[in-house]
């Protein structure tokens, strides 16, 4: 009887067995260190350009005249333009907006990305929320990313955020689409190899350089747009920008890149 009671008590008190984000991060870094012994983990912040010398040389030349420069300038102007109530973004974001390295955060029971925080700020001051794919929002995020350059990613996973973190991890490792690929298949298992002419990048460093000017897009776009593309490339339908699953995936990826310096915005092919 006593044993039964103990078992019942244990069952009632035991919560779900959460993973340890720090252990996950160390394991992922060790994986890439072993896979690419000549590439320091921090260098993966440059994506595939860390792995291919000729592509890197081309990219460095492109970065001499950064195609995202006008977007950053526009963002800086928008950031310093006051709202109708006389306040501004500076009242919501410390350090003149150099806070990109601290997002996403877990607040109010959900993962809050910088895009969401900007809209929350606007709405708190009587302004309309910006569309997730609007040029204005991209410009603001691009400016804030630029202001945050070289700051090390600094993301916490409090206990109450563990379920969201775990769902983000599940999304990353789950097969999807008709091609039956998970994120990890491309960006871990066959990272460094080529799909047609493109080198597959490592997941450590995936979030450091957003928003990004992609020559394919001919404009600066958000990380979630890239998620949609990745999904579609394996024959899966993409999700809406800022959907819960994409925010949690961003959270997981950012935790994996914790400590790496921000280098956004950037340009990519």
């Amino acid at each position, binding site marked *: 009887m006593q044993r039964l009671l103990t078992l019942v008590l244990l069952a009632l008190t035991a919560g779900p067995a959460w*993973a340890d984000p720090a*252990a996950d991060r160390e394991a992922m870094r060790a994986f890439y260190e072993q896979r690419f012994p000549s590439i320091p983990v921090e260098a993966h912040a440059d994506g595939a350009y860390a792995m291919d010398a000729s592509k890197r040389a081309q990219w460095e030349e492109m970065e001499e005249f950064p195609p995202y420069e006008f977007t950053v300038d526009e963002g800086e102007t928008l950031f310093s333009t006051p709202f109708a109530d006389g306040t501004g973004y500076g009242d919501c974001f410390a350090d003149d907006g150099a806070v990109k390295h601290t997002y996403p955060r877990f607040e109010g029971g959900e993962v809050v990305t910088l895009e969401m925080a900007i809209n929350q700020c606007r709405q708190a001051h009587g302004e309309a929320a910006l569309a997730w794919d609007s040029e204005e929002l991209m410009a603001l995020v691009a400016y804030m990313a630029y202001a945050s350059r070289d700051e090390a990613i600094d993301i916490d996973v409090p206990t109450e955020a563990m379920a969201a973190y775990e769902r983000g991890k*599940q999304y990353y490792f*789950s097969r*999807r689409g*008709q091609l039956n690929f*998970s994120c990890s298949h491309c960006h871990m298992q066959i990272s460094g190899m080529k799909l047609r002419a493109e080198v597959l990048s490592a997941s450590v460093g995936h979030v450091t350089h957003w928003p990004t000017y992609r020559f394919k897009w001919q404009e600066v776009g958000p990380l979630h747009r890239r998620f949609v593309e990745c999904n579609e490339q394996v*024959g*899966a*339908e993409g999700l809406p920008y800022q959907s819960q699953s994409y925010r949690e995936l961003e959270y997981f990826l950012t935790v994996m890149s914790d400590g790496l310096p921000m280098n956004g915005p950037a340009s990519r092919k």
Partner: protein
Amino acid sequence: MKTLIFIVLVSLAQTALADAAAIIKEAEALNAKARSMENAWTPTTKLIAEAKAAKAEGDETRASQVGERARMLAEASIRQAELERENWKTRQLVK
């Protein structure tokens, strides 16, 4: 005899019509279920559109065939989502 053949032909045509419509409807329902699981596949949606276009053009055979392919893909996408609820754990680094 002629009347009987006529009735049989009309009946067969109606069955084909009903089949194509029913298959497309089922494919759409399954694809909607996959989408609600955030696991719809792009080829399924394309095939459903293709089946509908064939039906609109009066090509019942093609509508049924393409609709059936869409239905099978939708079923596979649901199965994939169900399997991955557990299988993803085998891929994580820290188990």
